[in-house]
């Protein structure tokens, strides 16, 4: 418990308080009231980063974490069990690969020189190499994060699909339903809760994840792929800017927590999670 208190509760409080100070590498508590928040409102980068965050979060969420996760779950449960298991394991692998190794693989695939995979193929076809990462920063961060993110939805949807009584599917098949009709009219309505849960949970995860962006694009070129959490990280720890603006970064992080909280409440209301909670799933008292 002490450990938890120490590494969760204390940091949360310290971050919140630090947001009102002008702390830098000297670590002094100079309170400047709402100064950091005024600065944020006038920071010319903030609107751009806000747009980036929204595009990145919902783009990745819509294309990969939910849609692609669902497609993978549907396909791997429709083919033979052994092959399905193989593909699920394959998609799970990136999640357990150390982030630096995963980034290394992508840096090779997307390399701007002719030694990378995609440009190697272009050169072989007689075309000029393209600097993929600086040409398509959004595409790059969405695809690289999405491939990791899809596995979570895939696993949860898979177990939800497997929990559907087989009789329903057999009955549909006897009645002459095609695979698409089966999916549309039986599977999708029955896995409604997991779908909503993944949407909500992964929104929060994506809002706050920046590890892979930091490694692959570093937020560049010129902040084109910088999201809110990465911006806060760079303000505090960036090696090349060398600013160590802990106070401002803490204020940015606090705002991010607020955004996350608002998003959770919105999801709670929209998806009516209370109804799901009504089913006694977890014993708490």
């Amino acid at each position, binding site marked *: 418990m002490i450990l938890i208190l120490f*590494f969760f509760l204390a940091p*949360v409080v310290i971050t919140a308080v630090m947001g009102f100070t002008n702390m830098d590498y000297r670590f002094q508590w100079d309170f400047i009231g709402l100064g950091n928040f005024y600065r944020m409102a006038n920071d010319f980068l903030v609107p751009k980063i806000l747009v980036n965050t929204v595009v990145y979060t919902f783009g990745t969420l819509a294309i990969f974490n939910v849609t692609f996760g669902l497609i993978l779950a549907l396909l791997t449960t429709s083919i033979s069990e052994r092959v399905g298991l193989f593909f699920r394991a394959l998609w799970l692998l990136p999640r357990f690969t150390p982030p*630096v190794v995963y980034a*290394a693989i992508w840096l090779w695939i997307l390399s701007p020189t002719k030694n990378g995979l995609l440009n190697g193929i272009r050169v072989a076809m007689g075309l000029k190499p393209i600097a993929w990462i600086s040409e398509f920063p959004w595409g790059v961060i969405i*695809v690289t994060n999405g*491939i990791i993110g899809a596995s979570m939805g895939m696993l949860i949807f898979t177990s939800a699909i497997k929990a559907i009584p087989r009789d329903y599917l057999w009955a549909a098949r006897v009645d002459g339903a095609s*695979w698409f009709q089966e999916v549309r009219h039986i599977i999708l309505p029955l896995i409604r809760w997991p779908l909503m849960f993944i949407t909500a949970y992964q929104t929060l995860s994506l809002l706050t994840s920046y590890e892979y962006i*930091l*490694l692959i694009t570093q937020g560049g070129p010129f902040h084109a792929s910088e999201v809110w*959490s990465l911006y806060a990280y760079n303000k505090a720890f960036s090696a090349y800017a060398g600013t160590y603006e802990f106070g401002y970064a803490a204020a940015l992080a606090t705002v991010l927590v607020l955004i996350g909280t608002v998003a959770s409440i919105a999801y709670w209301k929209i998806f009516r999670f209370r109804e799901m909670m009504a089913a006694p799933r977890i014993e708490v008292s």
Partner: protein
Amino acid sequence: MAKRGFTPGSLQRERRKQRLLRTSMYVFLVVSSLPIIVGYIWLFVGAFTGNLVYGFVPEEFTLKNWSFLWKPPSAAWPNIWRTFANTVFLAAGVTVIMVVVSTSAAYVVSRMYFPGRSMILASTLILHAFPAITLLIALYYILRALGLLDSLWGVILVRAGLMVPFGIWVMKGFFDDIPWDIEMSALIDGATRFQTFWKVMLPLVKPGIAAIAVFAFMAGWAEYIFLVTFVRDPNSWTLSSYINAIIGNYRFTNYGLLAAVSLFYMFPVLLFFLLTQKLLMKVTVGGIKGGR
């Protein structure tokens, strides 16, 4: 409109349609998995060849990429084996702390009643939702105050601390599944509470311990963000920092070295993964893995 009914023709057509659907499923899966498949194959091929022609055709077999094993690629870098030992130390430290703390805490919340119990359970769930970035800045401050910056102990404590709520929830599930009667009979036979826990309960939750230990080890082994933020001293580098430095110094140039060190780093993960992937899938569904 084709005539309905079970004529041989319609059955055949139906079967052909089924086969087409199935084939297209396989094709889709293979094509969409290509980036992953190709990427991991590259780790193996790239590590043992010089420059690849057109980026993907191997030319000759060579071991020169592996020279980092006895000679650091840059004079300022530490010996790879020291880095390796640091990585093992980090992963093992995280595993031990996380398993001990979450197993004992889970036993307490699962079996004993005390005021504030439900609050503790709820708070572990809420805290789980706090993003690492909000904690990172404050943790930097705390570690600095404790003098644990630039030391692996700081990273171990932070990583273990962040994983403990997850561990408590998983282990609580395992303890809840053990009937009270077993524990009662041990107590009636004169065992103390601690003996019951140690000799009766622990052996029964071994699968749970194995599961969270694997998780903690993999997380510690792969740790990146806390490491590059809190630890700058090359003597405390782990393999993550090592590869990070390779990416930083030889970005887009020395792919052979990058692949070789990555493969070296990945090897235990691959081994672990192949042995435990079924277990991992189950636990990932049951509790939710930290980070993402």
